[in-house]
């Protein structure tokens, strides 16, 4: 617009200048024309005057001739000769004056011979006068020949006069005409020039106003723009001069970078880059590239005033003036640290889920359920599958295909379930059989995304084997229960048997013994020694049988009865057992050596049985020793405590050690050492039930050591007592 106005103004000036020039030229031309015309006009009169002067010259010449003729005075002859000479000049002048007038030239061409004839005639008369005298001359004159010539000359001159007059009039008219045109041209040109000048003034004024307004608006805009930029908080927006020094600064720049305008304006922008980037010449590189391409964008680490780093998105734009000269750069920086962190978090999370997706053993897929016209789910398409999918289904290249394509016989209930989930958004967990795949699945499925997408995510597991295993377990469990039932029955029978044994089997023995005693009493000395011995044997056998039954019952009870574990004070138990053996120890000398004994977590009654058996045995098998030595102690351990009891008794042969703990196994004859062969079997059974072991070491006649271990418990209570001090029990 500005240029158009300028053009108009220039055009106006050109036009008005042209008008003025044209007018000048026209004036000049008209004036020149006027002068020329005037000159021609004057010239015409000069021609007329010359014509008339010719007539006078001819008359003078004739007059002088006549005078000569008459007088013969040579002075008249001289006058005539002079006049004739002037006549020839006159013809020449006339020819010259009328050079541009062909008509006059033609008249002149007619006139000239006439004049020449007249002059020749004059000179003939003069000669005649001179040679023949006055008479002859007068006769010649009387021939009127001169008069005719003269009339013709007069006529020609008059015609020329008239013609020249016409020319003069024409010239005069031309001058008038030109003068009129010139006036019009001058008036017109002046008016046009004034108009154009006025127009130019109007245009210029208008343009000036417009410019002033535009400038005001520009100024306002600039102010607004400056405020806007200055107050932007989320972006650092500032200008750099062409060498990279900061020229302006805004609020956002202060917030993001930490410098105030006073601190940074005039400094080089490489201050914002980490030291290593500065060393790598990044700042220069950026400016070079921005200069070359006009724009440079980069994400990277930048440094704040306090030295902390932030992740920035930087755009540098080169600013050029209209002539393309580099004025500087605009640098827009945004702090993307948070975004970068959240992106990083997102990326990690995505990676985690991708890893999960790719590495889980479970099959995972996303399907799109396909409904028919009546909104019945009839098929589904696999949109995404994980690597385990194939292993879990046996379906190859399932991606993008539908289930019906892959397994036409796939049961309808699968489609119904997924259709239901896609329609209602209710997640489902279920187990189902896919007969065509020959597998049973445990499935968790849920709707994914918007309902209209009809997408369902499915997490599934082939549980065919575990299902089979489960069934097998169920079968085995049923078997086990049956067996347990049988066992329980057996146990009950065994209990009934034990009960019956304890009650009924003992009764006949009692009777045998009872009636033997009654028989003895009744016989009252009638029996001889042998008879009495037989009665003793019978009674003893019955008693032995009774003892066997009792021990067997105890053994059976040890195996069956419920364990009631508690913390048992081993030392107290041992002391109690020893004191219960007073009867057996009567008349014996026994040196007891009892070491520290830790508490044991065990069934007190059962553990009592163990100690009773072991201590009883030690007492029994040291009977031949005087004094007997019995040592009781414990080797404590981290995992278990090993208790032991050592005696200096008869011992046993180690080759029979394996028989030691068997039921009814004895290494000594009953005559030597009484016993049922059940005791150690009981010990073993109890210790095994407590998770421990038993063993024995011995050498025949050199005593024996029995060890049993009990698993260590948390509590470690050492029985208080005479630690380590050998102690002698009163032997009865």
């Amino acid at each position: 617009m500005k240029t158009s106005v300028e053009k108009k103004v220039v055009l106006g000036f050109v036009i008005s200048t042209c008008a003025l020039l044209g007018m000048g030229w026209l004036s000049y031309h008209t004036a020149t024309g006027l002068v020329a015309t005037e000159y021609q006009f004057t010239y015409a009169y000069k021609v007329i005057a010359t014509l008339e002067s010719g007539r006078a010259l001819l008359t003078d010449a004739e007059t002088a001739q006549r005078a000569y003729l008459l007088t013969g005075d040579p002075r008249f002859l001289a006058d005539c000769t002079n006049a004739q000479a002037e006549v020839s000049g006159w013809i020449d002048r006339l020819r010259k004056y009328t050079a541009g007038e062909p008509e006059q030239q033609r008249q002149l061409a007619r006139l000239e011979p006439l004049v020449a004839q007249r002059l020749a005639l004059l000179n003939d008369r003069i000669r005649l006068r001179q040679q023949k005298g006055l008479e002859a001359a007068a006769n010649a004159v009387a021939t009127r020949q001169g008069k005719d010539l003269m009339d013709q000359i007069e006529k020609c001159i008059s015609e020329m006069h008239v013609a020249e007059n016409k020319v003069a009039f024409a010239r005069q008219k031309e001058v008038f005409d030109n003068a009129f045109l010139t006036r019009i041209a001058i008036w017109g040109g002046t008016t046009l020039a004034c108009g154009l000048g006025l127009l130019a003034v109007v245009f210029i004024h208008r343009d000036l106003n417009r410019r002033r307004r535009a400038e005001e608006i520009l100024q306002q805009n600039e102010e607004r723009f400056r405020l806007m930029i200055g107050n932007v908080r989320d972006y650092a927006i500032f200008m750099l001069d062409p060498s990279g020094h900061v020229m302006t600064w805004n609020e956002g720049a202060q917030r993001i970078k930490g410098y105030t305008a006073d601190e940074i304006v005039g400094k080089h922008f490489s201050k914002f880059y980490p030291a290593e980037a500065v060393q790598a010449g990044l700042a220069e590189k950026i400016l070079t590239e921005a200069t070359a391409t006009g724009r440079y964008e980069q994400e990277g680490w930048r440094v704040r005033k306090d030295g902390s780093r932030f992740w920035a998105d930087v755009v540098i734009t080169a600013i050029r003036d209209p002539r393309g000269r580099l004025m500087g750069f605009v640098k827009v920086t945004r702090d993307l640290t948070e975004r970068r962190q959240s992106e990083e978090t997102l990326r990690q999370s995505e990676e985690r889920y991708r890893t999960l997706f790719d590495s889980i053993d479970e099959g995972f897929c996303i399907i799109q359920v396909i409904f028919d016209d009546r909104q019945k789910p009839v098929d589904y398409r696999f949109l995404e599958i994980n690597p385990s999918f194939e292993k879990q289904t046996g379906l190859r290249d399932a991606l993008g295909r539908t289930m019906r394509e892959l397994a036409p016989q796939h049961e309808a209930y699968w489609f119904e379930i997924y259709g239901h989930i896609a329609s209602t958004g209710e997640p489902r967990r279920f187990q189902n059989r896919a007969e065509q795949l020959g597998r049973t699945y445990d499935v968790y499925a849920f709707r994914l995304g918007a309902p209209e997408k009809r997408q369902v995510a499915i997490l599934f597991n082939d549980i065919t084997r575990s299902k089979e295993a489960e069934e097998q377990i169920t079968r085995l469990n049923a078997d086990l229960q049956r067996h347990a039932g049988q066992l329980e029955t057996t146990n009950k029978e065994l209990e009934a048997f034990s009960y019956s044994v304890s009650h009924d089997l003992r009764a006949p023995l009692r009777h045998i013994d009872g009636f033997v005693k009654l028989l003895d009493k009744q016989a009252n000395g009638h029996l001889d020694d042998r008879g009495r011995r037989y009665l003793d044997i019978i009674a003893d056998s019955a008693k032995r049988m009774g003892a066997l039954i009792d021990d067997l019952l105890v053994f059976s009870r040890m195996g069956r009865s419920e364990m009631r574990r508690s913390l048992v004070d081993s030392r107290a138990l041992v002391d109690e057992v020893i004191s219960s053996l007073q009867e057996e120890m009567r008349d014996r000398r026994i040196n007891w050596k009892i070491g520290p004994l830790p508490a044991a977590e065990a069934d007190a009654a059962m553990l009592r049985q163990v100690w009773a058996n072991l201590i009883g045995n030690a007492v029994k098998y040291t009977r031949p020793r005087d004094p007997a030595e019995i040592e009781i102690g414990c080797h404590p351990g981290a995992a278990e405590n090993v208790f032991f009891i050592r005696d200096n008794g008869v011992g046993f042969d180690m080759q029979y050690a394996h028989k030691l703990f068997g039921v009814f196994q004895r290494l000594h004859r009953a005559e030597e050492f009484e016993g049922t062969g059940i005791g150690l079997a009981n010990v073993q059974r109890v210790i095994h039930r407590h998770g421990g072991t038993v063993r024995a070491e011995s050498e025949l006649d050199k005593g024996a050591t029995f060890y049993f271990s009990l698993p260590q418990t948390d509590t470690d209570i050492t029985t208080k007592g005479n630690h380590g001090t050998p102690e002698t029990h009163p032997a009865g």
Partner: protein
Amino acid sequence: MAPLKRILLVEDNDRDIELTLAALEENNLANEVVIARDGAEALDYLHSRGKFTGHANGLPVVVLLDLKMPKVDGLEVLRQMRDEAPLKHVPVVMITSSREEQDLVKSYQLGVNAYVVKPVDFQQFAKSIKEIGFFWAIVNEPPPGVLKRRS
């Protein structure tokens, strides 16, 4: 009229009865023993019913009760006795071959006064019976309403 018997022996086994009586003879208590051959008979006797209908037996100072018997066993006899007012306080001593814990527990739960396991050894057996007889029939002061010792 036969003298009233102060000891009720409930025992199904003849031989045990004979041995028990033999033992009690040594205390001269054999004559004071009345014998029931099973639990039902014992209850009939105590309630004077059945074949004991019309007999004014009076309450014994002690009942020596075998545990395992045909028909009604010892525990059932004990349970019924403890449920009825006049019999509730009559001392009952279990005399049995069973050393089973469950029998012991049940007996004491039902309120037995003593529990004696019959030893196989007759001498011990005889000794136990003698001591029981001596204690309950002679030493012990029975609850009111029971037969007093003949003076």
